């Protein structure tokens, strides 16, 4: 690929997904009954809902299904597939909009997804669901609003919700938790804002709402939450109806906010915690990925960060620069590593880190694609990543580049 920067990574293929190459924060791999590997991809923006790509041969990906949203004032930023059920998160542009919630699809025939049910999370103060986790076929863990939830600040509408989908035709709420002080009527005072300006923009850089909620089958009694400006949380969810805080860690402030993902490395007693860069031109630098010692769950200790390339080189290249999504070691047809971390860093591309020594992470591979055609910014903005159990790396550009497939020599 002309103009790309590569170190120990090779591009196997690239697909702009029929011209709708804005990839959101959802990539999930299904092994279909006929053995095909189907990668389900969420879109960053309307008009598309989700796209299914047959990646059985990673050198020749092929779009086999692409669906549309009901209108353009919404997005389906996140999705997960578990078995033959696909869960898609719907978020609307303004509180009160619809449809806002989670839709379940039967994808046993990947070319023709069929809606099973819809869990409604709309409400006068809700934008619906932003991000979801669904790996066990039984419970969806997600960030969402609710009809009965009035936040103390309008940007704090999405909190931790657990949805029981054991009967996929009839999803029901199993539990919820929110940051104390973010709901009107809470005994706790509202949290002090980290970066409150601009106050009137619902997409502003400051929020005490949930982003990712990760739950692994090896520790079904734990949820790992990235609560944006509230930091990282380890929750006891042995009783899903009443999640309880076990441990928390928050570098914001002085760091500029937006804890995104909290991924446990369960064999090692570590957490990998990412911030999300949410502003262009290095405005919110440094957005870091932290390695946290979690051997003692109620005393989380940061011990290092993943090294990023120089801000003077990347800060003003165009678009965002800094941490965002990582491959989350989910079960299924997924590569699971506690030694290597695969991440996307917007204009700094796809990066792989060796954290065998967690005090001194080292970058071992990277790939930065050139600016894709029709992008709104001057660089590729690598936004989402998934690694399958064969070690094949799938990553997506936020604006127009679509799907990039790699292999790494690590």
């Amino acid at each position, binding site marked *: 690929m002309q103009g790309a920067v590569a170190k120990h990574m090779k591009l196997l293929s690239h697909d702009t997904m029929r011209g709708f190459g804005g990839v959101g924060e959802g990539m999930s791999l299904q092994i279909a009954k006929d053995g095909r590997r189907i990668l389900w991809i969420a879109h960053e923006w309307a008009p598309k809902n989700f796209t299914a790509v047959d990646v059985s041969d990673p050198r020749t990906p092929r779009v086999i299904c692409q669906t549309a949203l009901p209108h353009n004032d919404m997005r389906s930023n996140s999705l997960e597939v578990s078995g033959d059920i696909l869960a898609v998160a719907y978020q609307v542009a303004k509180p009160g909009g619809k449809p806002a919630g989670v839709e379940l699809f039967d994808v046993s025939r990947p070319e023709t997804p069929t809606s099973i049910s819809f869990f409604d999370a709309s409400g006068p103060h809700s934008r619906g669901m932003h991000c979801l986790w669904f790996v066990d076929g039984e419970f969806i863990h997600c960030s969402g609003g609710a009809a009965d939830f009035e936040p103390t600040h309008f940007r704090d509408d999405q909190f931790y919700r657990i949805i029981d989908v054991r009967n996929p035709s009839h999803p029901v709420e199993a539990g919820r938790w929110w940051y104390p002080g973010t709901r009107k009527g809470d005994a706790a005072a509202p949290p002090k804002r980290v970066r409150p300006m601009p106050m009137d923009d619902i997409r502003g850089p400051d929020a005490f709402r949930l982003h990712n909620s990760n739950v692994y089958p*090896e520790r079904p009694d734990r949820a790992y939450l990235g609560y944006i400006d509230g930091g990282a949380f380890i929750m006891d969810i042995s009783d899903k109806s009443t999640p309880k805080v076990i441990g928390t860690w928050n570098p914001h402030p002085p760091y500029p906010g937006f804890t995104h993902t909290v991924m446990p*490395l*369960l*064999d*090692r*007693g*570590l957490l990998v915690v990412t911030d999300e860069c949410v502003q262009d031109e290095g405005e919110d630098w440094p957005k870091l990925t932290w390695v946290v*010692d979690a*051997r003692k769950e109620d005393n989380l200790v940061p011990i290092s960060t993943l090294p990023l390339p120089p801000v003077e080189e990347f800060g003003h290249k165009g678009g965002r620069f800094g941490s965002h999504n990582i491959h989350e*070691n989910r079960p299924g047809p997924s*590569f*699971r*590593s*506690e*030694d*290597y971390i695969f991440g996307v860093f917007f204009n700094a591309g796809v990066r792989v880190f060796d954290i065998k*020594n*967690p005090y001194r992470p080292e970058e071992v591979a990277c790939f930065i694609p050139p600016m894709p055609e029709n992008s709104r910014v001057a660089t590729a903005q690598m936004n989402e990543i998934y690694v399958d*159990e*064969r*070690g094949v790396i799938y990553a997506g550009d936020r604006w127009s580049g679509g799907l990039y497939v790699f*292999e*790494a*020599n*690590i």
Partner: protein
Amino acid sequence: MTILRYHIAFGIVENPARVLSMQPAALPQDGPILSPSAASFASDSPALRLNSAGWMSLPAAVMATLRTHAALKNYCRSRIQKKASIFDRPLQDFLTSYLDVVEAEIRDHANDLPGGASWDAALYDTADWFFSAFLPLPNAHLELTEEERKETGAERFIRFDVVFWTGTSLIAVTLERLSMPTPRQRHEQARFAAMRSDITFVSIPRKKNGMRLQSYLPSVCEQFWHGLRYPLGPYRPEAFRWQPAPGRLS
């Protein structure tokens, strides 16, 4: 018969090449080289046991405080445990299990152990056989030959969670983890295994489903005292540091 040489860096090791470069260059004729972070031995070397000299730092001042068998055993256990990273729970758990198995094995065979009920019981207790158990080399980086490097594509070392040298066999243990090997690591391991029939490769699953550790490592866990006349402790004069391999007893 070809004599094979094994060079292993082990314990908390970041740079195995550097560890080995800090060891004496040649094997002494009368025994293996064992240090707190490296082992170099040959296929005719005696077994590496907990009582083998060199791997454990036991200054006389510390020894003087270890007045009971239990205190000495616990010190030995703690030295082994410290060879696993604080961020490696599977390895920590394995070492704990292994040492528990050793203790249980001695208890279960107390009446059969040499000297257990004889006149020399006054000199030592059957529990002292603990120190005759095979020495686990945790986080072991085995140095490859030039040919092996070429064939496997690996750099200088191949890593195993634990290695044992029983005097007759090198046993390389891999613990199944949540972490998967990378495609390159898988390739290197498969190629290496195909080349080394002298090594016994053992993979221990994460969920043993009721299987005991002995089931996976019978030659290490069971009757490890076979061929030994009496138990030796980890602290003794230089002249008694090495016990001959079972095959060289007569």
